[in-house]
Structures are given as structure tokens and as C-alpha cells.
């Protein structure tokens, strides 16, 4: 099989010792198994996520993503841009779509980029890693690499917002996307049918600024997973992962619940099913330990 190459935009949270560094670790293990080569965009910058609007405004906000695209075109020409973070993907894809359709914006953006000697054509596709898995690799191929099926595990596929809306994954519905469930089944585990909070918002950045309101939503997301009989939650988004995992102590204190629900990435599940070690799968990054996955890596 020919090696697939992509221009990779990892994003701030995936950096070493950042909040989703364990995501990056598991992505590396997964890509290694699937013969995917990720060429990091040199000197990429933050996309300002969905919270850059207030101080940044429209053109500065879009210019952030445009700079990344310009660097990608320069150093990784001819490759699709791939992001693992939902917000990175959304911001970059929004910028690409708008640059492709708005001539005035394209002109202004290039005027701004010229201040650093850069220019953008916005001619590379912008994709989320799950699109690469589904569209370029395919479920069948992903299944062939499974060495340790995740048998007996029940997993709630929490898709969340930004890998689902407004762009979403081709062929999936906004209200009930099935791709995580299909992936879970491909790896030998059992997806929770009708997981009620599959596309519920976790609060995103407002988990920081409006913790009470956000934690009420997070509580529902976890509760619905328990109601469905889930052993753990899987998500494609670093913000979802963090918000749903790290506040469980605070939620327990406030709501008198006894939540202890591991929240992992799709790439964590894949790395484990592909026979990688705890460390390679990023399991040491779990605040709530995924003990059932650890048991499988030791098998």
C-alpha cells in the first residue's frame, strides 16, 4: 500500500504537555499502523478557535487560518490539510470556503499576509482526521488492522458539535451521525444505540467562562452514557474530551453523582485495537483511567 501523505495541522492543544497531548500520541500510533504520513505545517499558528471573534474580529481571525494555509501551500504543496482538532478544522475550513467564494476577502487577506511575505491561494482541501479515516482508508481497511478486538466493551459515541456542525462529515446527518458508532463496531466493541446526548454541546470554551451552565450540560452527556449502559465515551474533539472528562469530580460534588466515566479519543481505541502499548495509545493521559482498555493492551 502506498503511503498516504497529508499536510498536518496539529493545533495548540496537541502540543507536548498540553491538554490533548495524549490525543496526538494516539494519533501517531494509529497513523503508524495505517501507513499515514503527517507532514506538520512548519511554524503553524493558533486558529483562535471559536472564541477569537470578540477581540479579533473578522479579518484578523480569518487571517490566522490563512497564514497556516499559506505555509501549507508553500511547504506541503499538493497535499490535503488535515486537522485532528475540531476547532482547528472548523476555523481552517471556514476560511478556505470563504476565500474561495469571496473575491474581496481573498484580496484583503493576501494584503494582510503580505506583511509577512506570504500569500494564499486556498487550493488545498481542508479535512478532519476522521474524514481521512472514513473516506481514504475506509472501515474495511481499518478493520483489517485490528489485532485485539475491543470485545465486550460498550462505548457511547459522543460526536459533539464542531466535527458535526456546520460542515459535518459527508453522508452523515447533523442530528444522528453514525460514523463513531460504525468505527466502534469496526474495532469489535458495541456502540450504544440511541445515545441521547450524541450531538449535545459540552459548552466548548464556555466551560471556562460559564462553568455552572456548562457543567449542567456535561452532566447530561455523562448521565446519558450511563443510561445507555456505556463503559466509556469516545469523541473526536479535544475540547469535548477535556470538558467531559476533567470536571467529573466537580460535577459529582455538586450533583451528588458518582460519575467515573472514562472519555477517550477514537484514536485511543484504534491504537489499543491495533495492538499498541498503553503509552503508545496515550492511556497514561487519562485522568479517569480506561482500565478496560489497559486490560486489553496487556492481553
Amino acid at each position, binding site marked *: 500500500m502506498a503511503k498516504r501523505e497529508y499536510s498536518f495541522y496539529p493545533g495548540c492543544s496537541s502540543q*507536548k504537555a498540553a491538554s490533548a497531548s495524549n490525543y496526538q500520541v494516539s494519533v501517531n500510533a494509529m497513523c503508524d499502523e495505517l501507513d499515514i504520513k503527517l507532514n506538520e505545517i512548519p511554524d503553524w499558528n493558533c486558529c483562535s478557535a471559536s472564541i477569537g471573534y470578540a477581540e479579533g474580529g473578522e479579518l484578523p481571525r480569518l487571517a490566522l487560518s490563512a497564514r497556516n494555509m499559506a505555509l501549507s501551500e508553500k511547504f506541503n504543496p499538493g497535499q490535503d490539510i488535515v486537522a485532528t482538532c475540531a476547532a482547528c478544522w472548523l476555523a481552517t475550513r471556514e476560511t478556505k470556503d470563504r476565500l474561495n467564494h469571496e473575491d474581496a476577502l481573498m484580496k484583503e487577506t493576501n494584503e494582510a499576509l503580505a506583511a509577512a511575505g506570504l500569500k494564499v491561494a486556498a487550493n488545498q482541501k481542508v479535512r478532519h482526521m476522521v474524514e481521512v479515516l472514513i473516506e481514504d482508508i475506509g472501515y474495511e481497511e481499518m478493520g483489517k488492522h485490528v489485532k485485539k478486538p475491543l470485545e465486550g466493551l460498550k462505548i457511547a459515541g459522543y460526536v459533539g*458539535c464542531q466535527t458535526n*456542525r456546520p460542515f459535518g462529515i459527508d453522508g452523515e446527518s447533523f442530528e444522528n451521525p453514525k460514523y463513531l458508532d460504525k468505527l466502534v463496531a469496526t474495532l469489535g466493541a458495541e456502540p450504544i444505540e440511541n445515545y441521547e446526548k450524541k450531538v449535545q454541546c459540552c459548552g466548548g*470554551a*464556555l466551560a471556562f*467562562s460559564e462553568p455552572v451552565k456548562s457543567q449542567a450540560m456535561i452532566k447530561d452527556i455523562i448521565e446519558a452514557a450511563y443510561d445507555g449502559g456505556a463503559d466509556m465515551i469516545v469523541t473526536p474533539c479535544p475540547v469535548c474530551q477535556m470538558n467531559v472528562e*476533567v470536571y467529573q469530580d466537580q460535577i459529582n460534588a455538586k450533583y451528588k453523582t458518582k460519575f467515573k466515566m472514562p472519555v477517550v479519543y477514537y484514536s485511543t481505541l484504534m491504537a489499543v485495537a491495533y495492538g499498541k502499548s498503553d503509552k503508545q495509545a496515550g492511556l497514561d493521559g487519562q485522568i479517569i483511567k480506561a482500565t478496560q482498555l489497559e486490560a486489553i493492551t496487556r492481553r
Partner: protein
Amino acid sequence: MGDMNVVKVEAYRNSFLKEVEANVEGGQWVKMCMQCGVCSGSCPLGSAWDHPPQELFMMIRAGKREEVLTSSSMWMCTSCYNCIVRCPRDLPITHIMHGLAHYAERLGLAPKNQPTRKFAKLFWNNLVKKGRVNELKLGVALYFMNGLVEGIKTALKMAPLGLNMLKTKRMNPLEYVGGHGIKDAAGLQAILKKARAIELAKAKKA
């Protein structure tokens, strides 16, 4: 900033809708709203908004400038995009909310103590400095954004969480002194400065 507000009041004396159309990201869509309320009903924090999107759209058309621009409502947007995908008229509602928030901020009318406004400003200033977000500095700045006393209380409350992040190597105390960044931060800042200048020049003309 205050001056810009006076200029805009003078320029659009009789039509806040026209002002929004010319000055707010996505503002030209506001008149398309048919008041069905799907956006308000779909918003995960809908009940926390003084005026949910549907109401804001009608208030804009009714000329309620002060009430809209000083509202904390649009700062409640979590950017979940539920409203966008469900709107039967395809209004880019999330972007309009962001646009309204930014316009209110630019005019100096945004509610000063609104926590998401404060956080959004911290986030932007944090990322601009080195080109990448410094999560630790952002977190600490967030805890202390309402002053020292409340900051210490928040920091103590959040300490167990921070410890968990440290233990799992998802946080690095050294980030506070150095931390991640890009090589060409100066170039990035030049780009942003130019982008802001272009935008402000357009805003003055609008």
C-alpha cells in the same frame, strides 16, 4: 472607541438594521429571519440568554440599538452551530452572534464584566503574543480575571483538576516561563496588525 459609537449613531440615526447590515459580520442576513424560533429552541444555553437569536433579530429590525449592543445575550453563544444547521432560511446565526458581540465590543458597548467577553479577550491576547495558546497562562489569567480574592478562591477550587492535568502530563508548569510559540511571531503580529487596519478603515467608511 466611544467616538466610533457616536459616529455610528449619527450615521444611522433612523435605522439600526442598516447599521447592522453594513457593520456586523453576517449582518446582511438579519432581514431574512422569519421569526420561527427554531434557533432559540435549539440553543443549548437558550434559557440563559436575555434575548435569544430570534428576539435579537426582531429587536434589530425594531431599532432597539442600545438594548441589543449592551446585551450579554450573544456572549452566551457556545459556537455549537445547532442554530445554523436548523435554520430554515439558512441564516449563519452563529456568525451573526459573534459579529454582534464583536461590533458591540468595538463600540465599547459590550457589558464589561461579562465572563465570556473577558475570557475571549484573554484568549486572543494570549495567542497573539507567541502565535500559539499558552494554556497554563490562559488558565491562571482566567482564574484571576475577577480580581485577586476571587482568583485565589477559584485557583484553590481548581487545584485538584490542575494536579490531575499535571499527573497525566497534560499540563507543564514550565509553560508559565517559556512555553510553546511560533518562530515568526513578529510576522504573525504584522499580519494581524495589517488585517486590523484594513478592517478599521472599512468600518469607518461603512
